[in-house]
């Protein structure tokens, strides 16, 4: 190592970086899935049960797998598919199991508190029963799922050593969070497109409320937009707000920052491709007004955002995780 000022004090195994990224992604995925299920139940209460639950399957792109295993998308079947079915790779138990598997690999690196909480969380989630997911118990269950992930996030914030591993973990978290926010927004559009007549009705408004609450953004939204609750304002808030923790723009800015830290503080030049993709996505968000986005088609825009997020994750993976070859990312 000639560049001693920039050389990391502690080398980070490529495999550890990968596991940190994925542990955070899977946990964030579990939390957001709980949010989606929670808000879906609210939609169901407002009168379109089958449609509401079907849309959950659709936004997760699980239509084929779901139909093969369960047939009709009844509320019960969808709940079971996402809350009990560990064989469904997009279920909450599967996401928590995958997070724990990565945490196991990372045990030499992460704090004992991080591991233990996740281990206990996994024990609980993998033993959920039909009774716990039924009826009015679902909302309580979703709250507990969210809190369990938030607890892990808090423990991580308070105990995990802040070197380059921290930035790989943050990258996984914010990329997944941005992706999930686009899905949450998309579910609402999937639901409402066939019934434009409802737009602006009391039912419609209550659904936008529910959506904001699912994203934990209702009160913040009220402060920022005290006099309007329109679909455009909500989409603007979830996509383009610069201060809301779950907005796509804020997540992308955080991803850019993490990549910049990895480059400047730890000398990881392999961040270039990912940083360029992130910059492109951020610019794409910053330069468009919500009106333009909605006019051109919100769903299509969300699709583009999701593809860009995949590109960023892919660039990080190619540079740091798998099949690394000397010369490709060697510092000086």
């Amino acid at each position, binding site marked *: 190592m000639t560049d001693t000022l920039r*050389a*990391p004090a502690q*080398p*980070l*195994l*490529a*495999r*550890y*970086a990968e596991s940190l990224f994925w542990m955070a992604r899977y946990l964030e995925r579990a939390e957001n899935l709980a949010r989606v299920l929670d808000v879906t139940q609210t939609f169901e209460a407002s009168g379109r049960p089958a449609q509401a639950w079907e849309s959950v399957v659709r936004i997760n792109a699980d239509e084929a797998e779901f139909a093969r295993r369960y047939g009709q998308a009844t509320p019960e079947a969808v709940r079971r598919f996402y809350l009990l079915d560990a064989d469904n790779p997009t279920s909450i138990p599967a996401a928590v199991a995958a997070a724990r*598997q990565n945490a*196991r*690999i990372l*045990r*030499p690196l992460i704090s*004992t508190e991080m*591991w*233990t909480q996740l*281990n*206990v969380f996994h*024990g609980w989630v993998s033993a959920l029963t039909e009774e716990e997911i039924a009826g009015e118990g679902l909302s309580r269950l979703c709250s507990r799922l969210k809190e369990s992930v938030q607890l892990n996030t808090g423990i991580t914030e308070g105990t995990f050593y802040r070197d*380059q591993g921290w930035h*790989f973990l943050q990258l996984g978290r914010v990329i997944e969070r941005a992706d999930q926010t686009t899905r949450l927004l998309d579910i609402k559009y999937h639901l409402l497109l066939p019934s434009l007549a409802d737009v602006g009705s009391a039912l419609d408004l209550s659904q936008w409320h529910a959506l904001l609450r699912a994203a934990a953004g209702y009160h913040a939204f009220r402060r920022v937009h005290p006099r309007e609750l329109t679909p455009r304002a909500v989409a603007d808030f979830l996509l383009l707000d610069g201060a809301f923790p779950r907005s796509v723009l804020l997540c992308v800015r955080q991803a850019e920052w993490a990549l910049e830290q*990895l480059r400047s503080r*730890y*000398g*990881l030049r*392999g961040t270039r491709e990912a940083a360029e993709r992130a910059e492109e996505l951020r610019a794409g968000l910053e330069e468009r007004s919500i009106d333009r986005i909605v006019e051109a088609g919100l769903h299509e825009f969300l699709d583009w955002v999701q593809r860009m997020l995949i590109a960023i994750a892919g660039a990080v993976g190619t540079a*740091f995780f798998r099949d*690394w070859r*000397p010369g490709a*990312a*060697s*510092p000086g």
Partner: protein
Amino acid sequence: MSGPKPRTTEVSDADGRPLPLPGYDPGGFFCELTTERPGDGGALATVLRRLAALPVEELRRRAASAERDLFNLGITFTVYSEATAIDRILPFDIVPRVLTAGEWRTLEAGVKQRVAALNLFLQDIYNGQKILKDGVVPADLVHGNPNYRPEMQGFPVPFGSYVHICGIDIVRDEHGRFRVLEDNARTPSGVSYVIENRHAMLRAFPDLMQGIRLRPVDGYGLRLQEAMCAIAPPAVADPQVVLLSPGIYNSAFFEHVFLAREMGVPLVEGADLTVENDRVFMRTTAGLAPVHTIYRRIDDTFLDPTVFRPDSLLGVPGLIAAWRKGNVALANAVGTGVADDKALYAYMPRIIRYYLAEDPVIENVETRICREPEGLAATLAELPNLVIKPVGGSGGYGITIGPRATRAELEACREKLLANPANWISQPVINLSVAPTLTPDGLRPRHLDLRPYAITGRDTWVLPGGLTRVALKPGSLVVNSSQGGGSKDTWVLVDE
């Protein structure tokens, strides 16, 4: 061995003497807690008094809570079947096993002597083979041993240390005498439980330990790191140590995590390492970073597919060449398995005398070698009174305990002996010592052993105490975790 005694009550034994704990009668066995020994400074009586004062429900409550902690902390091994992966803890018994300062001095000296002899033997075997030429150990025991590695001939290791991490299994007979049962010179496991059991004890029973001064066990990681640095290539100022594990599916994975954490080093798998120009590197986010010492927890034959098993995916191609060039150190060295064989074990007292000109500090269990005609004859004559063990086995498998065996089992054993005598040794049944252990019936005597751990770089250090394994089934002499054994915290008292 004594049968059940008549008229034992909760408070007194068959002869009317008061029992040390309610319902606890160790019978004719040496008890690690209730048999009086000099030099304990009153600690044994204190522990007994405190234990006796706790209702058994309270003991159970604390035991359950301690075991739940171990499970939640992931101090577990994973049992895989086709469809499931179940995490299990090594059952933890909350009654500690206590060693006096004097007893520990004997054990420590005995372990150091044993490790010194093992290393001298390996150095000789892989250099001049003087001991074979002098006829002390039969040459074919070495050359015909599957763990003998001719590749090691003439290869120098720092300080003549081959066995850097060693575990010696020691039992205690009914007179309280220590006996070595087995040497573990390859990749002995279990040390993580020594330290975690102490932590569990501190959480569950601070009141039991209060005021009793114990030798600490938490220095293990530092000592290990120190030894790993000492054996690194001498030109390296700040050596990078790694722990090489088969990965998360290995049943000892928790221990690998524990040791990597205690040493503060990366836990790597074979695919994380690569060899270029006979130097070993690990793949990091910043490129290849050099590695200087590997504490490997995989067997010799999996280390390097270009030298040993070509089908091994756990190892690192080119590792042995890098090692032979002196660019990386391996702990333990390759080829130590030739020294911890059960057949060779029988020769250890002679090996100690040969190299050190000393008597063994801790004797072997008397052992008959069935490859020798007189050993086979004596074994066959006394079969129902002996323990018969395969020389290559581990984990308590394949053992026949004569006094516990049925007529048919003894007959099967006799046939196996005659078919391949060289595969067997026999030993008298040792009436292993016992200690009070929490059972469904309350505190009852259960048999146990002890595995102290020694670290050897420049010199040898022994972790105070070691792993006490306890057979949880009544009367059972098999303490292995694969056969229903558990473990206890092991206390070494500080000299008053």
